[in-house]
């Protein structure tokens, strides 16, 4: 992660949200969201991720009976003391399902934040805003000839990018995204993920996701694998090796880590892989146990993150299934590394 000046744009302190009195959907959350970064909120379904996100731009006020306690400060101002409309203009939002306004054209959808709010702009200014916003979401080239068509004619992925453009047009300080790709196919999802990395330059992003690979992008991953590795074996098991290692690192290694993988050696039969993270590592006495089933090192941490304790066990068995070997070590500079082998195609 680059060294930017770490300035908090959003701070949450002891935030509790409840739908029914006495039952907190979100319990005592404290967090600092830094400017210029993508921060993701990860967790299982129903754990209150979206609830927390929606509290940030006071979307809960639509529904009676929801109580929010604690401090949410946006740009050092308490959002509960600000005008709701002002808060929502500072914090744009993109929803799970694309929701362009069905009666408006693509052009009008992008500019809707201005027209609906009665902000007067000249035609040229509007054209510029629309063009810039659509270029930001990489939609301009696809729709520049059909700007006057209804937004609902676009595909799901395009609609979602249109919604992102609509939120960006208002130049928010922070963009809240509530599982923005959950209703999209993998290709559309990829495009939006790529987009997020681009958008990081323009706006701070808080994203709710339960898609690990989406979160993984936001951790710094260094993939040093050559493209011409020719591994033989069971496809889904080999996939499980890499995925479980990755999820394990994301879940347990800590924050702001670098994860890397490389193939450091090969001989006649095997490729030798090194997978490492720069996180907190594990205690030496626990190293042997991490491949055992249902073992979770550092109980407190895994309880917070969930998980069955099966991930690394699966990795080990998958490697052994292919007649390989795997070993875990603590790195000297901190973090954990895994050495393992996979069979080469002859």
């Amino acid at each position, binding site marked *: 992660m680059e060294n930017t000046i770490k300035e908090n744009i959003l701070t949450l302190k002891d935030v509790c949200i409840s739908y029914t009195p006495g039952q907190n959907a979100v319990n005592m959350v404290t967090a600092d969201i830094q400017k210029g970064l993508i921060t993701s909120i990860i967790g299982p379904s129903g754990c209150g991720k979206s609830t927390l996100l929606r509290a940030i731009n006071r*979307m809960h006020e639509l529904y*009676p009976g929801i109580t929010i306690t604690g401090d949410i400060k946006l740009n050092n101002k308490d959002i509960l003391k600000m005008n709701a*409309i002002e808060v929502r203009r500072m914090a*744009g939002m993109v929803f799970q399902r694309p*929701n362009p*306004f069905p009666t408006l054209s693509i052009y009008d959808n992008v500019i809707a*934040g201005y027209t*609906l709010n009665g902000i007067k702009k000249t035609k040229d200014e509007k054209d510029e805003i629309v063009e810039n916003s659509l270029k930001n979401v990489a939609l301009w080239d696809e729709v520049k000839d059909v700007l006057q068509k209804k937004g609902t004619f676009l595909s799901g992925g395009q609609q979602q990018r249109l919604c992102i453009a*609509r939120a960006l047009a*208002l130049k928010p300080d922070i963009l809240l995204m509530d599982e923005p790709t959950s209703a999209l196919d993998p290709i559309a999802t990829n495009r939006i993920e790529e987009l997020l990395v681009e958008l990081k330059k323009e706006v701070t992003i808080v994203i709710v996701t339960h898609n690990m690979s989406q979160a993984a992008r936001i951790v710094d991953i260094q993939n040093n694998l050559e493209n011409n590795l020719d591994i033989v074996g069971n496809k889904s098991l080999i996939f499980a090796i890499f995925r479980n290692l990755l999820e394990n690192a994301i879940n347990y290694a800590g924050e702001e880590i670098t994860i890397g993988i490389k193939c450091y050696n090969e001989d006649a039969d095997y490729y030798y892989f090194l997978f490492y993270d720069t996180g907190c590592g594990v205690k030496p006495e626990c190293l042997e146990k991490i491949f055992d089933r249902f073992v979770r090192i550092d109980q407190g941490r895994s309880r917070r993150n969930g998980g069955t304790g099966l991930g690394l066990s699966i990795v080990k068995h998958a490697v052994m299934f292919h007649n390989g070997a795997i070993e875990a070590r603590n790195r000297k500079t901190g973090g954990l590394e895994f050495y393992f082998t996979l069979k080469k195609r002859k």
Partner: protein
Amino acid sequence: MNTFTYRKIKNASLYVLVCLFAGLTAVPLFAILGQVLIKGWRELIVSDFFVKSTPTTLDALIALRSGEIIPGGIANGIVGTILMVLMATFIAIPIGIFAGIYLAEYKTSKYASIIRFLTDLLQGVPSIVVGVVGFIWVVIPLKSYSALAGSAALTVMMLPLIIRSTEETMKMIPNTMKEAGLALGTSYPIIILRVMLPSAFGGIFTGVLLAVSRVIGETAPLMLTALGSTMIQWDVTRPNSAVSLLIWEFYNDPNLQSLVWSASLFLLIFVLTLNIIAKQIAKKWRIQ
């Protein structure tokens, strides 16, 4: 016979029965249309029918004797119907739509559930009772039967239909639409007026058309409020006629009875057309 063939036969016979009864529902409509068409088309194609007002009994009698088509038409009725229905629609649309929005937006409030209940009751009130109330509230204070009184009665009949169709359509609009607007920092009333209402336009417009086609055929409330008129009447404070009222009058006049069919045919075609248009709009503008 094995169980399998028995089942097949049972299945087939039930299927035939169901189709038959489903088809039976179409019979009354076609019977009515056919009957009215056969007996009423002759007067309807005479150009006078739409521009002249009701003939007197005597004129009709003379025409009947000489075997000619009855002179005159239902222009007075058409004018009255259009006047009263238009006035009623203009009054009922804003009230109905705003009430519908209220019911949809405050689903859970106690006041809303009371209003919703009363709306349902209003829909169930017999139309003749609406006429009586219109008579007491409008005709007596104004000291005259009038198109105004007629349209007041029709408004009351239209309101529940418009309210409920607006409410249902607004409820169908996904909440995400509202959230999308709110997330852009738009105020609540603006979202309702500029985002929700346009999205609901198709449903609301269909509801209005159906309400119009419903009251266009109403006779009972008009008998006691608009009374009727033998000539074309544009003054809304004077008694006025309506196509449905004319049908009743033609029926009561032995010499004019053949006009019953042509007036009915006209009314039927008008209402059916409105219904078909409403269906098409509902299809085209349905909420995505």
